[in-house]
């Protein structure tokens, strides 16, 4: 994790406008380096004031610092920008629960469930809130304030048996968080987190571009580079699969490999639901 912090810090220094600050801030929060985490989040917000995930990050840091008033403001802002943001809905539910307003807590959890009906943490929290346990009598419901709190998923569980599962296949969620797989750069360095951070939002932009052109849904994005080819495909509407191979693998074949890997990823995601 310390290496990840260094890597992400270096990336952020090289490109202060990149969204890598989201991952860096979250990592620092998990390490309980709250001052640093808050600084990273605040600087990121100065550059991206309308980014819902940035307000959500700052809210989580504030909640960890027990500064619930500011956490509330940030989650409230998150929802103004992105009304269905589940992190903010769960966060506000957590805060309402803390002050004993079970009706509001339940209302926010119900909204979160509408957006993400398969999130088990929401069900667990709803059960606790509906059980009428007062905040003073019980720990706060198991609302995962951080979506990254869960253990990382080993890549072999997603892409078992596929060539390049350890170095050329990557499965991400819509926010650019790694669900499985790994990537290595040409010099053998782990490039997983850096690539994931840059690809956050690509799926949405590809989707918007195709829609704007009246082309329907996007099914793949192939790219040719001097040292290799890549193929991106959305196995589900909120996931992104990246395949990287050297130039000996033509782009057409890469797309075929991509479809196979996407099928495996889709099945794996369904099993997690």
């Amino acid at each position, binding site marked *: 994790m310390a290496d990840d912090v260094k890597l992400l810090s270096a*990336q952020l220094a090289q*490109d202060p406008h*990149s969204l890598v600050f989201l991952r860096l801030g979250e990592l620092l929060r998990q390490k309980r380096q709250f001052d640093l985490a808050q600084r990273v989040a605040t600087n990121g917000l100065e550059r991206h004031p309308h980014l819902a995930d940035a307000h959500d990050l700052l809210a989580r840091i504030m909640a960890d610092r027990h500064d619930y008033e500011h956490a509330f403001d940030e989650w409230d802002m998150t929802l103004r920008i992105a009304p269905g943001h589940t992190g903010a809905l769960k966060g506000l539910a957590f805060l309402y629960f803390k002050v004993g307003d079970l009706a509001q807590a339940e209302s926010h959890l119900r909204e979160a469930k509408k957006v993400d009906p398969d999130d088990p943490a929401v069900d667990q929290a709803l059960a606790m809130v509906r059980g009428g346990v007062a905040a003073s009598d019980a720990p706060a419901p198991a609302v995962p304030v951080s979506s990254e709190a869960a253990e990382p998923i080993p890549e072999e569980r997603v892409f078992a048996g596929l060539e390049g599962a350890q170095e050329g296949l990557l499965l991400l969620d819509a926010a650019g968080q790694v669900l499985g797989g790994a*990537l*290595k*750069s*040409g*010099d053998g*360095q782990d*490039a997983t987190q*850096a*690539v994931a951070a*840059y*690809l956050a*939002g*690509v799926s949405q*932009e*590809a989707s*918007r*571009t*195709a829609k*704007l*052109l*009246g*082309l*329907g*849904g*996007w*099914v*793949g*994005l*192939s*790219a*040719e*580079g*001097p*040292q*290799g*080819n*890549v193929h*991106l495909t959305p196995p589900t509407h909120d996931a992104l699969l*990246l395949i*990287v191979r050297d130039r000996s693998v033509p*782009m057409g074949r890469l*797309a075929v490999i991509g479809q196979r890997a996407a099928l495996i990823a889709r099945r794996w995601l369904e099993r997690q639901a």
Partner: protein
Amino acid sequence: MSKNGYESALNGVTAVRGVRGAMVVAGGDGLVVAESLMEGIKGAAVAALAASLATRLGRAMEAGGVGGGVFWHLQAERGALLVVPARSGMLIVAIAEPGVNAGLVRLELLKAAEGVA
């Protein structure tokens, strides 16, 4: 290079059967420099999104060790967007129908990119 020069660079691209339009886009800010589009295509909006997409993808490719992109191909249910960056930082963008000869479009985009480099 004049605007007419940019537009003439697009002629080879738009001559490919199945291409609905082509643009020269400033890669940094996504502004349209020249365009030759069929009616109804929102050139400015597409240019902005294409530039943003190209920037993100280019950074990811650099980080992944394959170098900056030399050709991108967005495939959708009812068509495709194909992009080649020129050395000057301009992007040559083609909008195509499904089933277009993507290899031929790629060649014409590369020629156009040399023309605006």
